[in-house]
């Protein structure tokens, strides 16, 4: 059976990353709850201006959309805008104030350390699965079962850059997706007031 698949290299990379990400943390994670996603909090210096602008799962969607823009938009100003959007989205993911992924263990309590460990386990699982899928596709192509024709990306460097940045941001993306809505301080005050 011969199958011919002709797709842009950038799209292939992104599809593999997105599918593996979703299958690992969304479908494979029983506790994931779409309606209970943590709002994104900006770095502390900006907090008083606009503490929350996006829910965690939206942040994941924004990052993948920005990566698609960086990889797939044609040259010129549109491509530059795509790259800038990708840089901004990656900055938001990494700068995400509540992201445990980038914090040293000694800054975290026992619950957060356990969460951080499980985030990295999921991130490594995603990366290993993505590499596995790519390897299988290449082997099928080599065995001439799959006629895989990867169209050259607009810029080879961008495809490599997106893949490398994914390795860096994957733990933060996993955390953004899975983190439930945090407690509100107001809720705490209400509990306290009711008890007094």
């Amino acid at each position, binding site marked *: 059976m011969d199958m011919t698949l002709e797709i842009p290299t950038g799209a292939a990379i992104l599809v593999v990353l997105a599918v593996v990400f979703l299958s690992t943390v969304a479908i494979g994670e029983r506790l994931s709850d779409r309606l209970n996603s943590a709002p994104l909090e900006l770095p502390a210096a900006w907090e008083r201006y606009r503490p929350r602008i996006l829910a965690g799962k939206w942040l994941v969607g924004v990052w993948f959309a920005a990566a698609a823009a960086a990889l797939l938009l044609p040259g010129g100003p549109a491509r530059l805008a795509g790259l800038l959007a990708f840089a901004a989205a990656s900055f938001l993911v990494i700068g995400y104030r509540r992201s445990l992924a980038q914090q040293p263990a000694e800054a975290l309590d026992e619950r957060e350390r356990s969460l951080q460990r499980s985030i990295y386990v999921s991130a490594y699982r995603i990366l290993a699965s993505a590499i596995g899928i790519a390897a299988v596709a290449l082997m099928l192509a080599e065995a001439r079962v799959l006629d895989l024709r990867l169209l050259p990306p607009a810029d080879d460097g961008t495809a490599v850059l997106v893949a490398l940045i994914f390795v860096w941001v994957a733990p933060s993306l996993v955390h953004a997706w*899975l983190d439930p809505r945090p407690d509100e301080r107001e809720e705490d005050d209400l*509990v306290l007031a009711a008890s007094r």
Partner: protein
Amino acid sequence: MTGRRSADEPPIPNRIAELRGEAGLSRIELSRLVGVNWQTIGYLERGEYNPSLALAFRLSDIFGLPIEEIFVRGRPGEAFPDGSR
């Protein structure tokens, strides 16, 4: 995952919210006393996180009660031995 107890690990009902209220402590104040993030107190109170023995002992010291009067083995909503929930 997410640092909460796993799905197959039963929650341990506790009286942290009640005892915190009686002591007049906010979550932030209690979290400073036991050395955890204030949101971890919320996770504990809702039974979404089972603490380590060390943290349970710190809570026991703060409330001046033995651990078994703060945490009770059972299902969510199950009454404590004195009939409270």
